[in-house]
């Protein structure tokens, strides 16, 4: 999987928001790649910049104050950042599709499901007009909706949350995209429905042969779905590795603490590990040094002065922490 050319390459991405005349970076120097047919999970708590990052890729940032300041987003080698709105429209929904967290707000409440499905096919494919509705029904059947020929005439409010998410998936795969970005696709759903949707996404991903960028806060979903995992904290990538090493050999103190703070069904701990404090808000980010320093159990005095860089500690395993930085004398201190 590693020898082929990456499908998506995000390089040193900086996305900033203008707040009271000052630019604050919600995404600061983020780099990672997604290979064809690979499932990459972006994991992090609220406010870590994972959603802003996905909106940056799709060029869906709020126009009035959000913008990409630096960096490149290469899709099959072409940079998406300088593209115009019209050029992006050619790519969005066709080569790159997106599923959102809240299927109620992502669907238009006053248009029928069929109309919204047809629109995607009409805009991005050369399916003949009379064939379009048939294709829509087929797609709905593909995502496991049994009454597909009736559902096309219904409105979003008539469907349950799980059904709406299925419709969103059907729309997203209508053009056989090469990359699917799924932003918390199951967070609003119940566990038994989440299990259905995750199974469906895996099945579709294999059928269509697409790569997936799955954004989530749920480490259980990560373990279930991911090939590779990118952990984000306060707008930066802090760890990037394959799924097995993330759970069995985590390196960054934040990743370790996060894994320790989730209650599991099979453990008998009385007290959960916690991470003291909270994620700093965009306006209160430390100006210098590591962004995790205030909450880090392994923090050293240097951590407030040196900006750690994302460095490879092992093949395919990168960490942003001076504990693992060879150029610092404290390298590989006991953690």
């Amino acid at each position, binding site marked *: 999987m590693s020898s082929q050319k990456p499908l998506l390459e995000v390089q040193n991405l900086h996305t900033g928001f203008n707040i009271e005349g000052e630019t604050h970076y919600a995404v600061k120097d983020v780099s990672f790649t997604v290979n064809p047919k690979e499932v990459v999970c972006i994991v992090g*708590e*609220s406010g870590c910049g994972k959603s802003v990052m996905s909106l940056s890729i799709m060029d869906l940032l709020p126009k009035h104050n959000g913008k990409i300041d630096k960096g490149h987003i290469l899709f099959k080698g072409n940079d998406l950042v300088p593209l115009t709105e019209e050029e992006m429209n050619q790519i969005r929904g066709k080569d790159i599709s997106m599923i959102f967290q809240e299927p109620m707000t992502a669907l238009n409440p006053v248009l029928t499901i069929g109309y919204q499905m047809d629109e995607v096919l009409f805009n991005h494919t050369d399916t003949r007009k009379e064939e379009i509705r048939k294709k829509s029904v087929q797609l709905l059947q593909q995502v496991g909706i049994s009454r597909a020929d009736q559902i096309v005439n219904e409105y979003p409010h008539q469907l*349950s949350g*799980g*059904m709406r998410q299925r419709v969103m998936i059907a729309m997203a795969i209508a053009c056989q995209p090469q990359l699917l970005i799924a932003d918390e696709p199951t967070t609003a759903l*119940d*566990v*038994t*429905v*989440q*299990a*259905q949707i*995750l*199974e469906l996404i895996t099945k579709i991903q294999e059928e269509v042969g697409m790569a997936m960028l799955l954004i989530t*806060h*749920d*480490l*259980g*979903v*990560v*373990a*279930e779905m*991911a090939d590779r995992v990118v952990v984000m904290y306060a707008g930066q990538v802090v760890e990037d590795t394959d*799924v*097995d090493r*993330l*759970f*069995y050999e985590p390196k960054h103190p934040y990743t370790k*603490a*996060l*894994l320790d*703070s*989730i*209650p*599991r*069904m*099979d453990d008998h*701990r*009385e*007290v*959960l*590990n*916690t*991470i*003291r404090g*909270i*994620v700093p808000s965009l306006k209160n980010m430390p100006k210098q040094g590591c962004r995790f320093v205030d909450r880090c159990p392994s923090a050293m005095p240097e951590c407030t002065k040196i900006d750690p860089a994302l460095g490879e500690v092992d093949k395919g395993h990168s960490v942003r922490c001076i504990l693992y930085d060879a150029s610092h004398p404290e390298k590989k201190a006991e953690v």
Partner: protein
Amino acid sequence: MAKETVKTEKSEHLLQVQELKKYYPVRGGFLRRKVGDVKAVDNISLELKRGETFGLVGESGCGKSTAGRTITRLFKPTSGNILFEGRDITNLRGSELRNLRQDIQMVFQDPYASLNPKMMVGSIISEPLVNYGHGSEGKLKDEVMQLLERVGLPEDAYYKYPHEFSGGQRQRIGIARALALKPKLIVADEPVSALDVSVQSQVLNLLKELQEEFNLTLLFIAHDLSVVKHMSDRIGVMYLGNLVEVADADDIYQDPKHPYTQALISAIPQPDPRNKSERVILSGDVPSPQNPPVGCPFHPRCPKAMPECSEKKPQLKEVNREHRVSCLLYE
């Protein structure tokens, strides 16, 4: 404040709920006549022992929140009995109900909506004390300061407003308010589901500490079975207004009896990539509580359904010691 002390004996159970039902009327048509019921809670029975944490778990719409609020008497039950310390509180009204509230407090899910944005945190926490005539002016502030400290908030929080705090801190404010009157029972309705994992573990640990310190009985309502299992001594699983299984927390996980509990446990994604166990994937969605299936409420989705499941409604029965299941497989 003198409380009624007519209890016959100090029973082991702080709270007993017997065949509790809560229906919401559905009105329709020109005359707004009652055309049906939403059976939010359809016959649940459970009891809480003193000092234990009882976890109530289920998916959205299963009636767990309605059950919690009916037990605290925020809602009036449609039928059934609620006994608190052996006293029937099902039909309490007026000042009697008001006095009961000193013993039963609630922590709500949404820390943004459950605190008055126009009140200072100091007033929010002291309000229950003022309402029930506890403490004079000077003592009141000391007491609130102690509570703030106990839940891990800084002293200057007293003069701040809720919007100045993060979600986790707001939940701490909510917990301090619930603790102010030193209640015997706290009903916590999804207290951590709006919080991030790193903050969630802080609040869960705090709740556990406080429970031991104040000898509280806790009814912990949540949809996340891993969180419920971590917190609870015993767990009740709800489906469509019914309690389908009640057992010790470890038993529920190690030896789930009801097909729904089994599916629920297997549906939880485990944070371990090497452990991809077999899934029981349920088909379909939860039916509407306005028109629940005849027979066992779970039978249309049940992988083990038998013909008689659509005819006979199973009752909650003991299959092992302290392990009760409502399923025809065990009858």
